[in-house]
């Protein structure tokens, strides 16, 4: 049994085309899965369905053996956390400490345990010195790290990142992805993005295009699927572009250079 099972999920917003059509996949415990797609590909809808904020029109989501529905959602939510795109709009508390506490208060955690978890998880994302700060005085990257700490503090197994870095500057992106990388081996991560190079730290890539799953591969194999990526309106990596040109037009020492470029990609 997989930790997350998405079975034939479809979704449609009123007066629009299908946002998701018959999407299925499984995610094992401890896996890092990247869901890639262009704007409007249905990837955010998928995220909301997995965490139970939207209800699939057909198909089902099974988390750790329990099918998501109105009766199970409150208990299943204990296992799930989500970090959204906009750093400001998910900051519920007036201070960092309040914000991390918010989810814990909802789960009726004892105050002493709350304080322990706040201390532990804020230092895990290097935000322990900012506990009394207001969100207006934090950078985007810092706010997103607080969001991560808030989710971690609830100690669920699965964390969904819904374009969590798309509104940040390069420094913020680095801070946040570093924090996410620390979760390897401890949490199951579903990382949603439209940037291929952010997929590099994941194990597996699922590509959505116009609401349909078009690819589900190990990361490095996925990079080779240039045609599928292009048809899904995604950019391929610059190194892959160069390799493609070399293969197409030829170059002496081409093999050697391809080798170097692959190494570069692995290193990331």
């Amino acid at each position, binding site marked *: 049994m997989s930790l997350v099972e998405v079975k034939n999920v479809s979704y449609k917003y009123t007066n629009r085309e299908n946002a998701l059509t018959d999407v299925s996949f499984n995610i094992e415990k401890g896996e890092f899965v990247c869901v890639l797609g262009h704007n409007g590909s249905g990837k955010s809808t998928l995220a909301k369905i997995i965490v139970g904020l939207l209800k699939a029109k057909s198909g089902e989501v099974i988390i750790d053996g329990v099918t998501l529905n109105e009766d199970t959602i409150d208990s299943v*939510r204990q296992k799930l956390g989500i970090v959204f795109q906009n750093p400001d709009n998910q900051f*519920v508390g007036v201070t960092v400490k309040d914000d991390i506490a918010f989810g814990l208060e909802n789960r009726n*955690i004892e105050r002493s345990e709350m304080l322990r978890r706040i201390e532990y998880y804020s230092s895990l994302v290097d935000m322990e010195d900012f506990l009394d700060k207001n*969100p207006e005085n934090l950078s985007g990257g810092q706010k997103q790290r607080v969001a991560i700490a808030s989710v971690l503090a609830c100690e669920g197994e699965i964390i969904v990142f819904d374009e969590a870095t798309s509104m940040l500057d390069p420094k913020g992106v680095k801070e946040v992805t570093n924090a996410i990388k620390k979760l390897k081996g401890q949490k199951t991560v579903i990382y949603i993005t439209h940037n291929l190079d952010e997929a590099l730290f994941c194990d597996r890539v699922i590509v959505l295009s116009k609401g349909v799953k078009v690819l589900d591969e190990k990361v490095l194999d996925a990079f080779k699927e240039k045609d599928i990526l292009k048809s899904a309106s995604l950019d391929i990596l610059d190194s892959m572009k160069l390799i493609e040109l070399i293969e197409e037009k030829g170059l002496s020492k081409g093999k050697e250079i391809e080798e170097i470029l692959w190494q570069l990609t692995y290193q990331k």
Partner: protein
Amino acid sequence: MNDKIVFGQYYQSDSWLHKLDPRVKIISVFSLMISLFIIKNIYLLLGFMFLVLLVIASTKIPFVKFLNSIKMMTFVLLVTFVLQVIFRRDGELLKSFEFNLTYMNLVIIIVSLFVWFLINKYIKYFKTFVFLVIVLALFILQYYVSYSPLIVKYNINIYSNGLIMASYIVLRIITLLFLSSLLTFSTKPIELNNGLDYLLKPLQKLKVKTSIFTMMVSIALRFIPTLILETEKVLKAQASRGADFKEGKLSARVMQIVSLIVPMFVIAYKRAYDLADAMEARGYIPEGKRTSIYELKYKFLDYFSYVIVFLILAITIFLRVKYAL
């Protein structure tokens, strides 16, 4: 630039008042306000005010901040004072002033007020003060100058009780402002909210949803600074599209205000929508039971403050009932 936006009037310090439990502060301010309205005797009021000033002095909050909070009320205070002085007619007659309203004086008065009306928007500082000086000058004029035919002669009589009553009312308003400033200067809005949350809890037994109310307040507190920043951004964006919020024809100005309001609604709506998702995803159930990170526990100083405050209330009630002070 962001750290300039401070919502509320909180003044950072580590005084005993800052450390006091917010519940104590809320209840104390209320009961002291009651005391204040019970006191009838001006000497007692002065004593009470002296106590408040002592508290202010002990908090390390600059006194200027308190004066600033009265500043907005200066005009109202002065008008109240003057009206009281002029219209109370009991007690001993202290002094009587005779004024001559002549034709020339009337013209001068009308012209000065007209000029004031034209130029007052260009005066940046001490506007109220300048106005008062002008008014005073006009009365002095009527007192000393009686040139040209007389329209009417009138007296302003100042009685002892009028003076006392006027000072009493003004002092009472000032003390009231000081008291409420003490609360808002020493307590963060969120602490106030937490205090209220605790204080209102008994109402939950009557099925009043106080937790939803305090959650709403806390979210408002969280998002007001963000929305202020957002408004500034929209304002600038429209200004760079040529919107001019100060000048122009009325119809154009209406359009420019719409150009500000519509985007603000769109932004606020989107934020609310996202926030609702974020709250739900983190397990918030509107009427559900929640624990709180803020634990309010009374300490010695809190009990002590309660005792003092209730003692003051009891004494003022006693004095009022027994001696009508």
